[in-house]
Protein backbone atom coordinates (compact mmCIF):
# COMPACT_ATOMS: atom_id res chain seq x y z
CA UNK A 1 0.00 0.00 0.00
CA UNK A 2 3.02 2.23 0.34
CA UNK A 3 2.79 3.29 -3.28
CA UNK A 4 -0.55 5.06 -2.87
CA UNK A 5 0.16 8.71 -3.62
CA UNK A 6 -1.67 11.93 -4.24
CA UNK A 7 -5.21 13.20 -4.14
CA UNK A 8 -7.74 12.09 -6.76
CA UNK A 9 -10.93 14.09 -7.23
CA UNK A 10 -13.87 12.37 -8.91
CA UNK A 11 -15.15 15.13 -11.17
CA UNK A 12 -18.69 15.80 -12.26
CA UNK A 13 -20.11 17.75 -15.15
CA UNK A 14 -23.39 19.62 -15.12
CA UNK A 15 -24.80 20.66 -18.49
CA UNK A 16 -21.40 20.42 -20.15
CA UNK A 17 -19.54 22.41 -17.51
CA UNK A 18 -17.43 21.39 -14.55
CA UNK A 19 -19.72 21.17 -11.51
CA UNK A 20 -19.26 23.81 -8.81
CA UNK A 21 -18.48 21.19 -6.20
CA UNK A 22 -15.75 19.74 -8.45
CA UNK A 23 -14.01 23.13 -8.67
CA UNK A 24 -14.38 23.46 -4.90
CA UNK A 25 -12.84 20.02 -4.34
CA UNK A 26 -9.97 20.94 -6.66
CA UNK A 27 -9.41 24.04 -4.50
CA UNK A 28 -9.55 22.05 -1.25
CA UNK A 29 -7.71 19.09 -2.78
CA UNK A 30 -4.88 21.36 -3.93
CA UNK A 31 -4.17 22.31 -0.31
CA UNK A 32 -4.20 18.66 0.78
CA UNK A 33 -1.91 17.64 -2.08
CA UNK A 34 0.51 20.48 -1.28
CA UNK A 35 0.61 19.44 2.38
CA UNK A 36 1.38 15.89 1.28
CA UNK A 37 3.88 17.21 -1.25
CA UNK A 38 2.11 14.98 -3.77
CA UNK A 39 0.03 15.53 -6.89
CA UNK A 40 -3.59 16.48 -7.43
CA UNK A 41 -5.44 14.65 -10.14
CA UNK A 42 -9.02 14.52 -11.29
CA UNK A 43 -10.92 11.77 -13.04
CA UNK A 44 -13.64 12.84 -15.47
CA UNK A 45 -16.18 10.13 -16.18
CA UNK A 46 -18.87 10.43 -18.80
CA UNK A 47 -19.53 10.60 -22.48
CA UNK A 48 -17.86 13.46 -24.34
CA UNK A 49 -16.23 14.95 -21.25
CA UNK A 50 -12.68 15.37 -22.52
CA UNK A 51 -13.31 19.04 -23.28
CA UNK A 52 -13.51 19.73 -19.54
CA UNK A 53 -9.90 18.68 -18.96
CA UNK A 54 -8.51 22.18 -19.59
CA UNK A 55 -10.98 23.69 -17.16
CA UNK A 56 -10.00 21.15 -14.49
CA UNK A 57 -6.33 22.05 -14.94
CA UNK A 58 -7.14 25.77 -14.72
CA UNK A 59 -8.92 24.97 -11.44
CA UNK A 60 -5.84 23.33 -9.91
CA UNK A 61 -5.40 19.77 -11.22
CA UNK A 62 -1.92 18.51 -12.16
CA UNK A 63 -3.28 15.52 -14.03
CA UNK A 64 -6.60 14.75 -15.66
CA UNK A 65 -7.71 11.17 -16.29
CA UNK A 66 -10.49 10.99 -18.85
CA UNK A 67 -12.78 7.97 -18.83
CA UNK A 68 -14.96 8.50 -21.86
CA UNK A 69 -17.49 5.80 -22.66
CA UNK A 70 -21.05 5.87 -24.06
CA UNK A 71 -22.05 3.60 -21.16
CA UNK A 72 -21.22 6.49 -18.81
CA UNK A 73 -23.57 8.93 -20.53
CA UNK A 74 -26.14 8.77 -17.75
CA UNK A 75 -25.22 7.96 -14.17
CA UNK A 76 -25.73 4.26 -13.48
CA UNK A 77 -24.38 2.77 -10.27
CA UNK A 78 -22.86 -0.45 -11.60
CA UNK A 79 -21.18 1.19 -14.60
CA UNK A 80 -19.70 4.03 -12.55
CA UNK A 81 -18.49 1.71 -9.78
CA UNK A 82 -16.72 -0.47 -12.38
CA UNK A 83 -15.13 2.55 -14.07
CA UNK A 84 -14.02 4.10 -10.76
CA UNK A 85 -12.54 0.81 -9.48
CA UNK A 86 -10.58 0.67 -12.70
CA UNK A 87 -9.42 4.28 -12.38
CA UNK A 88 -8.50 4.02 -8.69
CA UNK A 89 -6.52 0.86 -9.32
CA UNK A 90 -4.54 2.58 -12.07
CA UNK A 91 -3.97 5.89 -10.31
CA UNK A 92 -3.47 4.37 -6.80
CA UNK A 93 -4.26 7.58 -4.91
CA UNK A 94 -3.79 8.13 -1.19
CA UNK A 95 -7.00 10.16 -1.00
CA UNK A 96 -10.18 9.99 -3.12
CA UNK A 97 -12.65 12.89 -2.97
CA UNK A 98 -16.18 12.96 -4.38
CA UNK A 99 -18.95 15.52 -4.17
CA UNK A 100 -21.84 14.97 -1.77
CA UNK A 101 -24.18 15.02 -4.76
CA UNK A 102 -26.83 12.61 -5.96
CA UNK A 103 -24.01 10.78 -7.76
CA UNK A 104 -21.55 10.91 -4.85
CA UNK A 105 -24.15 9.71 -2.35
CA UNK A 106 -24.83 6.68 -4.54
CA UNK A 107 -21.36 5.93 -5.86
CA UNK A 108 -19.02 6.60 -2.94
CA UNK A 109 -20.33 4.02 -0.43
CA UNK A 110 -20.53 1.22 -3.01
CA UNK A 111 -17.07 2.06 -4.29
CA UNK A 112 -15.63 2.12 -0.76
CA UNK A 113 -17.11 -1.26 0.09
CA UNK A 114 -15.88 -2.68 -3.25
CA UNK A 115 -12.39 -1.33 -2.55
CA UNK A 116 -12.55 -2.65 1.03
CA UNK A 117 -11.76 0.78 2.37
CA UNK A 118 -13.40 3.30 4.71
CA UNK A 119 -15.23 6.47 3.78
CA UNK A 120 -16.56 9.60 5.47
CA UNK A 121 -19.61 11.17 3.85
CA UNK A 122 -20.54 14.84 3.64
CA UNK A 123 -17.28 16.28 5.01
CA UNK A 124 -17.12 20.01 5.60
CA UNK A 125 -13.42 20.13 6.49
CA UNK A 126 -10.46 18.02 5.43
CA UNK A 127 -6.87 18.25 6.55
CA UNK A 128 -3.70 16.20 6.50
CA UNK A 129 -1.85 15.05 9.59
CA UNK A 130 1.72 16.04 8.69
CA UNK A 131 3.33 13.12 10.46
CA UNK A 132 1.13 10.15 9.55
CA UNK A 133 -0.16 11.68 6.29
CA UNK A 134 -3.61 10.64 7.48
CA UNK A 135 -6.64 12.44 6.10
CA UNK A 136 -8.46 14.17 8.96
CA UNK A 137 -12.15 14.08 8.09
CA UNK A 138 -14.62 16.41 9.80
CA UNK A 139 -18.31 16.04 9.17
CA UNK A 140 -21.58 17.24 10.70
CA UNK A 141 -23.49 14.47 12.48
CA UNK A 142 -26.75 14.22 14.44
CA UNK A 143 -28.49 16.37 11.87
CA UNK A 144 -25.93 19.13 12.27
CA UNK A 145 -26.07 19.23 16.08
CA UNK A 146 -22.50 17.97 16.37
CA UNK A 147 -19.29 17.60 14.39
CA UNK A 148 -17.29 14.39 14.27
CA UNK A 149 -13.62 14.07 13.35
CA UNK A 150 -12.55 10.75 11.85
CA UNK A 151 -9.38 9.13 10.60
CA UNK A 152 -9.09 5.88 8.69
CA UNK A 153 -6.21 3.52 8.09
CA UNK A 154 -7.06 1.70 4.88
CA UNK A 155 -6.03 3.15 1.52
CA UNK A 156 -7.27 4.97 -0.38
CA UNK A 157 -8.78 7.24 2.27
CA UNK A 158 -12.15 8.32 0.92
CA UNK A 159 -14.41 11.28 1.61
CA UNK A 160 -17.35 13.00 0.02
CA UNK A 161 -17.38 16.79 0.29
CA UNK A 162 -20.37 19.01 0.96
CA UNK A 163 -21.16 21.70 -1.61
CA UNK A 164 -19.80 25.16 -0.73
CA UNK A 165 -17.66 23.75 2.11
CA UNK A 166 -14.42 24.45 0.22
CA UNK A 167 -13.32 27.35 -1.94
CA UNK A 168 -12.31 27.00 -5.58
CA UNK A 169 -8.97 28.47 -6.63
CA UNK A 170 -8.97 31.55 -8.83
CA UNK A 171 -9.09 30.17 -12.35
CA UNK A 172 -5.65 30.20 -13.99
CA UNK A 173 -5.68 29.31 -17.68
CA UNK A 174 -1.88 29.44 -17.81
CA UNK A 175 -1.58 26.40 -15.52
CA UNK A 176 -0.06 23.34 -17.15
CA UNK A 177 -1.32 19.82 -16.68
CA UNK A 178 -1.27 16.40 -18.24
CA UNK A 179 -4.28 14.66 -19.76
CA UNK A 180 -4.42 10.84 -19.89
CA UNK A 181 -7.16 8.60 -21.27
CA UNK A 182 -8.18 5.58 -19.24
CA UNK A 183 -10.42 2.84 -20.61
CA UNK A 184 -13.64 2.47 -18.67
CA UNK A 185 -13.43 -1.31 -18.49
CA UNK A 186 -17.19 -1.67 -18.15
CA UNK A 187 -18.84 -5.02 -18.73
CA UNK A 188 -22.26 -3.91 -20.04
CA UNK A 189 -23.83 -7.20 -19.00
CA UNK A 190 -23.08 -6.33 -15.38
CA UNK A 191 -25.16 -3.15 -15.36
CA UNK A 192 -28.20 -4.26 -13.37
CA UNK A 193 -30.16 -1.22 -12.17
CA UNK A 194 -30.68 0.76 -15.38
CA UNK A 195 -31.35 4.42 -16.01
CA UNK A 196 -34.58 4.76 -18.01
CA UNK A 197 -35.23 8.49 -18.18
CA UNK A 198 -35.02 11.74 -16.35
CA UNK A 199 -38.03 13.86 -15.51
CA UNK A 200 -37.20 17.51 -14.90
CA UNK A 201 -39.32 19.49 -12.50
CA UNK A 202 -39.17 22.95 -13.95
CA UNK A 203 -38.69 25.72 -11.46
CA UNK A 204 -39.23 29.14 -12.94
CA UNK A 205 -37.15 32.12 -11.97
CA UNK A 206 -33.80 32.25 -10.24
CA UNK A 207 -32.00 28.98 -9.43
CA UNK A 208 -32.02 28.34 -5.71
CA UNK A 209 -28.31 27.51 -5.43
CA UNK A 210 -27.32 30.64 -7.34
CA UNK A 211 -29.80 33.11 -5.87
CA UNK A 212 -28.33 36.11 -4.01
CA UNK A 213 -31.30 36.00 -1.66
CA UNK A 214 -33.36 33.03 -0.48
CA UNK A 215 -36.77 33.45 1.10
CA UNK A 216 -37.48 30.23 2.98
CA UNK A 217 -40.67 29.10 4.60
CA UNK A 218 -41.58 26.28 6.94
CA UNK A 219 -44.41 24.41 8.53
CA UNK A 220 -45.72 27.63 10.08
CA UNK A 221 -46.82 28.92 6.67
CA UNK A 222 -49.65 26.43 6.89
CA UNK A 223 -49.95 25.44 3.24
CA UNK A 224 -49.15 26.18 -0.40
CA UNK A 225 -50.88 29.58 -0.22
CA UNK A 226 -48.41 30.75 2.38
CA UNK A 227 -45.57 29.91 0.02
CA UNK A 228 -47.23 31.85 -2.79
CA UNK A 229 -46.96 34.93 -0.60
CA UNK A 230 -43.17 34.54 -0.35
CA UNK A 231 -42.83 34.90 -4.11
CA UNK A 232 -43.40 38.64 -4.17
CA UNK A 233 -40.55 39.24 -1.75
CA UNK A 234 -38.35 36.81 -3.67
CA UNK A 235 -38.99 38.71 -6.92
CA UNK A 236 -38.14 42.05 -5.29
CA UNK A 237 -34.83 40.71 -4.04
CA UNK A 238 -34.11 38.80 -7.29
CA UNK A 239 -34.05 35.74 -5.11
CA UNK A 240 -35.61 32.30 -4.92
CA UNK A 241 -38.05 30.58 -2.57
CA UNK A 242 -36.83 27.69 -0.41
CA UNK A 243 -38.61 25.35 1.97
CA UNK A 244 -38.05 23.08 4.94
CA UNK A 245 -38.60 19.33 4.91
CA UNK A 246 -42.03 19.35 6.59
CA UNK A 247 -43.33 21.67 3.84
CA UNK A 248 -42.02 19.23 1.23
CA UNK A 249 -43.37 16.15 3.01
CA UNK A 250 -46.80 17.80 3.17
CA UNK A 251 -46.67 18.31 -0.58
CA UNK A 252 -47.04 22.10 -0.36
CA UNK A 253 -44.11 22.85 -2.69
CA UNK A 254 -41.94 20.93 -5.19
CA UNK A 255 -39.25 18.72 -3.68
CA UNK A 256 -36.60 20.60 -5.68
CA UNK A 257 -36.78 23.65 -3.39
CA UNK A 258 -35.95 21.81 -0.16
CA UNK A 259 -33.09 23.43 1.74
CA UNK A 260 -31.31 21.32 4.33
CA UNK A 261 -29.24 18.28 5.12
CA UNK A 262 -31.17 16.16 2.63
CA UNK A 263 -32.04 18.96 0.24
CA UNK A 264 -30.06 21.75 -1.33
CA UNK A 265 -27.15 23.57 0.28
CA UNK A 266 -27.33 27.30 -0.27
CA UNK A 267 -25.09 30.17 0.82
CA UNK A 268 -26.75 33.39 -0.37
CA UNK A 269 -25.96 36.92 0.77
CA UNK A 270 -29.34 37.09 2.47
CA UNK A 271 -31.44 34.23 3.88
CA UNK A 272 -34.85 35.19 5.19
CA UNK A 273 -36.38 32.41 7.28
CA UNK A 274 -40.11 32.79 7.67
CA UNK A 275 -42.25 30.66 9.98
CA UNK A 276 -39.63 27.97 10.28
CA UNK A 277 -38.15 26.78 13.55
CA UNK A 278 -34.56 26.42 12.39
CA UNK A 279 -34.00 22.71 13.07
CA UNK A 280 -30.40 21.55 12.79
CA UNK A 281 -31.38 19.53 9.72
CA UNK A 282 -32.59 22.68 8.01
CA UNK A 283 -29.69 24.87 9.15
CA UNK A 284 -27.26 22.35 7.63
CA UNK A 285 -28.46 23.63 4.26
CA UNK A 286 -28.23 27.37 4.89
CA UNK A 287 -25.81 28.09 7.73
CA UNK A 288 -23.24 29.33 5.21
CA UNK A 289 -25.50 32.27 4.32
CA UNK A 290 -23.93 35.68 4.91
CA UNK A 291 -26.88 37.17 6.80
CA UNK A 292 -29.79 35.18 8.20
CA UNK A 293 -32.98 37.05 9.08
CA UNK A 294 -35.80 35.41 11.02
CA UNK A 295 -39.50 36.12 11.20
CA UNK A 296 -41.16 33.81 13.71
CA UNK A 297 -43.85 34.22 16.32
CA UNK A 298 -42.13 31.89 18.79
CA UNK A 299 -39.36 33.79 20.63
CA UNK A 300 -37.91 30.43 21.75
CA UNK A 301 -37.56 29.10 18.18
CA UNK A 302 -34.07 27.87 17.41
CA UNK A 303 -33.89 30.12 14.35
CA UNK A 304 -33.24 33.07 16.68
CA UNK A 305 -30.05 31.31 17.80
CA UNK A 306 -28.94 31.19 14.18
CA UNK A 307 -30.13 34.50 12.78
CA UNK A 308 -28.37 37.88 12.84
CA UNK A 309 -31.59 39.93 12.73
CA UNK A 310 -35.13 38.99 13.56
CA UNK A 311 -38.59 39.93 14.64
CA UNK A 312 -40.95 38.01 16.88
CA UNK A 313 -44.16 38.27 14.91
CA UNK A 314 -46.85 36.35 13.10
CA UNK A 315 -45.76 36.13 9.48
CA UNK A 316 -49.28 36.89 8.23
CA UNK A 317 -49.08 40.44 9.58
CA UNK A 318 -45.34 40.88 9.21
CA UNK A 319 -44.73 39.70 5.65
CA UNK A 320 -46.94 42.21 3.76
CA UNK A 321 -45.51 45.12 5.76
CA UNK A 322 -41.95 43.87 5.33
CA UNK A 323 -42.39 43.31 1.61
CA UNK A 324 -43.88 46.76 1.14
CA UNK A 325 -41.09 48.47 3.09
CA UNK A 326 -38.43 46.58 1.14
CA UNK A 327 -40.07 47.70 -2.08
CA UNK A 328 -39.99 51.34 -0.94
CA UNK A 329 -36.36 51.11 0.15
CA UNK A 330 -35.25 49.49 -3.10
CA UNK A 331 -36.94 52.25 -5.12
CA UNK A 332 -35.04 54.99 -3.34
Amino acid at each position, binding site marked *: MADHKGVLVCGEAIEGKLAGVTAEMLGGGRKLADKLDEGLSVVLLGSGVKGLAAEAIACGADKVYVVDDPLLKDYQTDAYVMAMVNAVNQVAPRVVLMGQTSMGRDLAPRLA*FRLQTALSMDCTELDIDAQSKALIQTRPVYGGNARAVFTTESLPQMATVRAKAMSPLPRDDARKGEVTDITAGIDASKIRAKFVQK*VKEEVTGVKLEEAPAVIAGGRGLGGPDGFKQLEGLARLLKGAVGATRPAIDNGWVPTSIQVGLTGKIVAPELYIAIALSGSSQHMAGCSGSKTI*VAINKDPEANI*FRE*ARFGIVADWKQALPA*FTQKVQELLKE
Partner: protein
Amino acid sequence: MELIVCVKQVPDPEAPPASFKVDPATNKVVPPPGVPPVISTFDETAVEAALRLKDAKGGKITVVSLGNNLVRDVVKKPLAMGADQLILLEDPVYENGDSWSTAYALSMAIKKIGSFDIIFCGRQAADWDAGQVGLGIAELLGIPSITLAKKVESVDGKVKVERIVPDGFEIIESPTPCLITVTNELGEPRYAPLKGIMRAAKIQPTIWKPQDIGVDPAQIGASGRRTKLVKLFQPVKEGKCEIVEGENAADAAAKLALRLREAKVL
Protein backbone atom coordinates in the same frame (compact mmCIF):
# COMPACT_ATOMS: atom_id res chain seq x y z
CA MET B 1 -43.29 -10.31 -2.30
CA GLU B 2 -40.69 -10.96 0.35
CA LEU B 3 -39.63 -7.59 1.70
CA ILE B 4 -37.00 -6.75 4.30
CA VAL B 5 -36.66 -3.39 6.01
CA CYS B 6 -33.64 -2.36 8.10
CA VAL B 7 -34.45 0.11 10.86
CA LYS B 8 -32.35 1.82 13.50
CA GLN B 9 -33.27 3.10 16.95
CA VAL B 10 -31.87 6.62 17.41
CA PRO B 11 -32.19 9.52 19.87
CA ASP B 12 -35.20 11.60 18.79
CA PRO B 13 -33.91 14.05 16.15
CA GLU B 14 -36.92 16.29 16.78
CA ALA B 15 -35.80 16.94 20.36
CA PRO B 16 -35.02 20.66 20.81
CA PRO B 17 -31.46 21.47 19.65
CA ALA B 18 -30.85 23.12 23.04
CA SER B 19 -31.22 19.72 24.76
CA PHE B 20 -28.49 18.16 22.63
CA LYS B 21 -25.37 17.35 24.66
CA VAL B 22 -22.07 15.61 23.96
CA ASP B 23 -19.90 14.09 26.68
CA PRO B 24 -16.40 15.10 25.59
CA ALA B 25 -14.79 12.48 27.86
CA THR B 26 -16.45 9.57 26.04
CA ASN B 27 -17.08 11.25 22.65
CA LYS B 28 -20.71 10.16 22.98
CA VAL B 29 -24.06 11.86 22.82
CA VAL B 30 -25.88 12.12 26.14
CA PRO B 31 -29.53 11.28 25.41
CA PRO B 32 -31.80 14.10 26.61
CA PRO B 33 -33.60 13.01 29.78
CA GLY B 34 -37.22 12.06 29.33
CA VAL B 35 -37.10 12.00 25.53
CA PRO B 36 -37.63 8.41 24.34
CA PRO B 37 -35.68 7.14 21.30
CA VAL B 38 -37.44 6.70 17.98
CA ILE B 39 -37.04 4.75 14.75
CA SER B 40 -34.83 6.89 12.53
CA THR B 41 -37.06 9.11 10.37
CA PHE B 42 -35.98 7.80 6.97
CA ASP B 43 -36.20 4.19 8.20
CA GLU B 44 -39.84 4.79 9.05
CA THR B 45 -40.29 6.06 5.49
CA ALA B 46 -38.61 2.84 4.33
CA VAL B 47 -41.22 0.86 6.29
CA GLU B 48 -43.91 2.93 4.56
CA ALA B 49 -42.40 2.14 1.14
CA ALA B 50 -42.51 -1.58 1.94
CA LEU B 51 -46.08 -1.35 3.23
CA ARG B 52 -47.22 0.37 0.01
CA LEU B 53 -45.70 -2.45 -2.02
CA LYS B 54 -47.31 -5.02 0.24
CA ASP B 55 -50.66 -3.21 -0.14
CA ALA B 56 -50.32 -3.41 -3.93
CA LYS B 57 -48.80 -6.85 -4.40
CA GLY B 58 -49.25 -8.73 -1.13
CA GLY B 59 -46.42 -10.47 0.65
CA LYS B 60 -44.52 -10.38 3.88
CA ILE B 61 -42.39 -7.72 5.55
CA THR B 62 -39.53 -8.68 7.84
CA VAL B 63 -37.99 -5.88 9.87
CA VAL B 64 -34.38 -6.15 11.05
CA SER B 65 -32.81 -3.90 13.64
CA LEU B 66 -29.31 -3.93 15.12
CA GLY B 67 -28.28 -2.49 18.45
CA ASN B 68 -28.37 -3.06 22.17
CA ASN B 69 -30.97 -2.22 24.80
CA LEU B 70 -33.54 -1.74 22.06
CA VAL B 71 -36.78 -0.34 23.45
CA ARG B 72 -39.51 -2.84 22.51
CA ASP B 73 -42.25 -0.22 21.99
CA VAL B 74 -39.94 1.67 19.66
CA VAL B 75 -38.64 -1.18 17.52
CA LYS B 76 -42.11 -2.72 17.35
CA LYS B 77 -43.56 0.37 15.65
CA PRO B 78 -43.06 -1.09 12.13
CA LEU B 79 -45.08 -4.14 13.27
CA ALA B 80 -47.84 -1.83 14.50
CA MET B 81 -47.77 -0.09 11.10
CA GLY B 82 -48.29 -3.45 9.37
CA ALA B 83 -45.00 -5.34 9.10
CA ASP B 84 -45.11 -9.06 9.84
CA GLN B 85 -41.95 -10.11 11.59
CA LEU B 86 -39.21 -8.50 13.67
CA ILE B 87 -35.64 -9.75 13.97
CA LEU B 88 -33.39 -8.02 16.47
CA LEU B 89 -29.63 -8.29 16.32
CA GLU B 90 -29.33 -7.37 19.96
CA ASP B 91 -26.14 -7.81 21.90
CA PRO B 92 -23.52 -5.52 23.51
CA VAL B 93 -21.05 -6.80 20.91
CA TYR B 94 -23.04 -5.09 18.11
CA GLU B 95 -22.65 -1.67 19.77
CA ASN B 96 -20.49 1.27 18.68
CA GLY B 97 -19.99 -0.01 15.18
CA ASP B 98 -19.49 2.06 12.05
CA SER B 99 -20.95 1.69 8.57
CA TRP B 100 -18.66 -1.25 7.81
CA SER B 101 -19.32 -3.36 10.88
CA THR B 102 -23.05 -2.60 10.83
CA ALA B 103 -23.48 -3.42 7.13
CA TYR B 104 -21.52 -6.64 7.63
CA ALA B 105 -23.69 -7.85 10.53
CA LEU B 106 -26.93 -6.90 8.74
CA SER B 107 -25.81 -8.60 5.51
CA MET B 108 -25.08 -11.80 7.44
CA ALA B 109 -28.51 -11.65 9.11
CA ILE B 110 -30.16 -11.18 5.70
CA LYS B 111 -28.25 -14.18 4.36
CA LYS B 112 -29.73 -16.19 7.21
CA ILE B 113 -33.24 -14.93 6.40
CA GLY B 114 -32.69 -16.39 2.94
CA SER B 115 -34.70 -15.41 -0.09
CA PHE B 116 -36.15 -11.93 -0.55
CA ASP B 117 -37.18 -9.57 -3.34
CA ILE B 118 -36.32 -6.14 -1.98
CA ILE B 119 -34.42 -4.76 1.00
CA PHE B 120 -35.47 -1.26 2.06
CA CYS B 121 -33.29 1.10 4.09
CA GLY B 122 -33.56 4.77 4.99
CA ARG B 123 -31.29 7.04 2.96
CA GLN B 124 -29.28 7.83 6.12
CA ALA B 125 -29.73 7.48 9.86
CA ALA B 126 -30.73 10.51 11.90
CA ASP B 127 -27.79 10.08 14.29
CA TRP B 128 -24.59 9.63 12.27
CA ASP B 129 -26.05 10.72 8.90
CA ALA B 130 -23.53 8.48 7.14
CA GLY B 131 -25.75 7.08 4.41
CA GLN B 132 -23.52 4.07 3.82
CA VAL B 133 -25.05 1.02 5.49
CA GLY B 134 -27.70 0.31 2.85
CA LEU B 135 -25.23 0.43 -0.02
CA GLY B 136 -22.74 -1.57 2.05
CA ILE B 137 -25.31 -4.34 2.51
CA ALA B 138 -26.02 -4.35 -1.24
CA GLU B 139 -22.33 -4.58 -2.03
CA LEU B 140 -21.68 -7.34 0.53
CA LEU B 141 -24.66 -9.32 -0.80
CA GLY B 142 -23.70 -8.61 -4.42
CA ILE B 143 -27.10 -7.21 -5.40
CA PRO B 144 -28.04 -4.06 -7.33
CA SER B 145 -28.99 -0.93 -5.42
CA ILE B 146 -31.03 2.20 -6.05
CA THR B 147 -30.77 5.19 -3.72
CA LEU B 148 -32.97 8.16 -2.79
CA ALA B 149 -36.25 6.59 -3.87
CA LYS B 150 -39.42 8.65 -3.69
CA LYS B 151 -41.61 6.05 -5.38
CA VAL B 152 -41.25 2.29 -5.71
CA GLU B 153 -43.38 0.05 -7.89
CA SER B 154 -43.19 -3.56 -8.94
CA VAL B 155 -43.77 -3.92 -12.68
CA ASP B 156 -43.43 -7.20 -14.61
CA GLY B 157 -41.11 -8.75 -12.05
CA LYS B 158 -38.86 -5.71 -12.00
CA VAL B 159 -38.80 -2.75 -9.67
CA LYS B 160 -39.33 0.70 -11.05
CA VAL B 161 -38.05 3.52 -8.86
CA GLU B 162 -38.28 7.28 -9.01
CA ARG B 163 -34.97 8.54 -7.70
CA ILE B 164 -34.69 12.13 -6.48
CA VAL B 165 -32.10 14.37 -8.18
CA PRO B 166 -31.66 18.12 -7.61
CA ASP B 167 -33.80 19.22 -10.56
CA GLY B 168 -36.43 16.50 -10.61
CA PHE B 169 -36.21 12.72 -10.61
CA GLU B 170 -34.80 9.80 -12.56
CA ILE B 171 -36.65 6.62 -13.41
CA ILE B 172 -34.51 3.56 -12.67
CA GLU B 173 -35.42 -0.07 -13.33
CA SER B 174 -33.78 -2.97 -11.61
CA PRO B 175 -34.16 -6.72 -11.47
CA THR B 176 -34.78 -8.30 -8.06
CA PRO B 177 -33.40 -9.06 -5.57
CA CYS B 178 -32.21 -5.52 -4.96
CA LEU B 179 -31.76 -2.94 -2.26
CA ILE B 180 -33.50 0.44 -2.24
CA THR B 181 -32.78 3.42 0.03
CA VAL B 182 -35.75 5.67 0.62
CA THR B 183 -35.96 9.45 1.03
CA ASN B 184 -38.57 11.57 2.81
CA GLU B 185 -40.08 12.76 -0.49
CA LEU B 186 -41.85 9.37 -0.58
CA GLY B 187 -44.34 10.95 1.82
CA GLU B 188 -45.40 10.70 5.44
CA PRO B 189 -45.33 7.23 7.01
CA ARG B 190 -48.76 6.01 8.08
CA TYR B 191 -49.93 6.08 11.66
CA ALA B 192 -50.03 2.83 13.56
CA PRO B 193 -53.72 2.05 14.15
CA LEU B 194 -54.81 0.77 17.57
CA LYS B 195 -55.48 -2.65 16.05
CA GLY B 196 -51.91 -2.69 14.75
CA ILE B 197 -50.48 -1.74 18.12
CA MET B 198 -52.41 -4.58 19.76
CA ARG B 199 -51.27 -7.03 17.09
CA ALA B 200 -47.64 -5.88 17.49
CA ALA B 201 -47.85 -6.40 21.25
CA LYS B 202 -48.47 -10.10 20.65
CA ILE B 203 -45.57 -10.60 18.23
CA GLN B 204 -42.37 -11.75 19.91
CA PRO B 205 -39.24 -10.47 18.19
CA THR B 206 -36.66 -13.05 17.15
CA ILE B 207 -33.29 -12.31 18.75
CA TRP B 208 -30.14 -13.23 16.87
CA LYS B 209 -26.84 -13.14 18.73
CA PRO B 210 -23.57 -12.89 16.78
CA GLN B 211 -23.12 -16.68 16.80
CA ASP B 212 -26.64 -17.12 15.35
CA ILE B 213 -25.71 -15.28 12.17
CA GLY B 214 -22.21 -16.76 11.95
CA VAL B 215 -20.31 -13.50 12.14
CA ASP B 216 -16.70 -13.12 13.08
CA PRO B 217 -16.90 -11.09 16.35
CA ALA B 218 -13.75 -9.20 15.31
CA GLN B 219 -15.67 -7.73 12.37
CA ILE B 220 -18.75 -6.41 14.16
CA GLY B 221 -19.51 -3.57 16.53
CA ALA B 222 -16.66 -1.48 17.86
CA SER B 223 -13.98 -4.06 16.97
CA GLY B 224 -15.08 -4.15 13.33
CA ARG B 225 -14.78 -0.41 12.82
CA ARG B 226 -12.70 0.90 9.96
CA THR B 227 -13.10 4.52 10.97
CA LYS B 228 -11.63 5.96 14.13
CA LEU B 229 -13.68 8.65 15.88
CA VAL B 230 -11.05 11.13 17.02
CA LYS B 231 -13.44 13.69 18.44
CA LEU B 232 -17.14 14.50 18.73
CA PHE B 233 -18.02 18.07 19.62
CA GLN B 234 -20.72 20.71 19.39
CA PRO B 235 -19.91 23.68 17.20
CA VAL B 236 -19.92 26.97 19.09
CA LYS B 237 -22.74 29.27 18.05
CA GLU B 238 -22.37 32.99 18.41
CA GLY B 239 -26.12 33.37 18.74
CA LYS B 240 -26.28 37.17 18.66
CA CYS B 241 -29.64 37.83 17.11
CA GLU B 242 -30.71 41.44 17.12
CA ILE B 243 -34.45 41.42 17.73
CA VAL B 244 -36.12 44.43 16.15
CA GLU B 245 -39.12 45.62 18.18
CA GLY B 246 -42.22 47.48 17.04
CA GLU B 247 -45.67 48.56 18.16
CA ASN B 248 -47.17 45.61 16.36
CA ALA B 249 -46.12 42.91 13.89
CA ALA B 250 -46.43 45.17 10.84
CA ASP B 251 -44.50 47.97 12.50
CA ALA B 252 -41.73 45.61 13.62
CA ALA B 253 -41.56 44.23 10.09
CA ALA B 254 -41.14 47.69 8.56
CA LYS B 255 -38.47 48.56 11.13
CA LEU B 256 -36.71 45.28 10.34
CA ALA B 257 -36.51 46.32 6.68
CA LEU B 258 -35.06 49.70 7.70
CA ARG B 259 -32.52 48.03 9.98
CA LEU B 260 -31.45 45.71 7.16
CA ARG B 261 -30.97 48.71 4.88
CA GLU B 262 -28.94 50.46 7.58
CA ALA B 263 -26.76 47.36 7.97
CA LYS B 264 -26.34 47.32 4.16
CA VAL B 265 -27.96 43.89 3.96
CA LEU B 266 -30.61 45.20 1.60
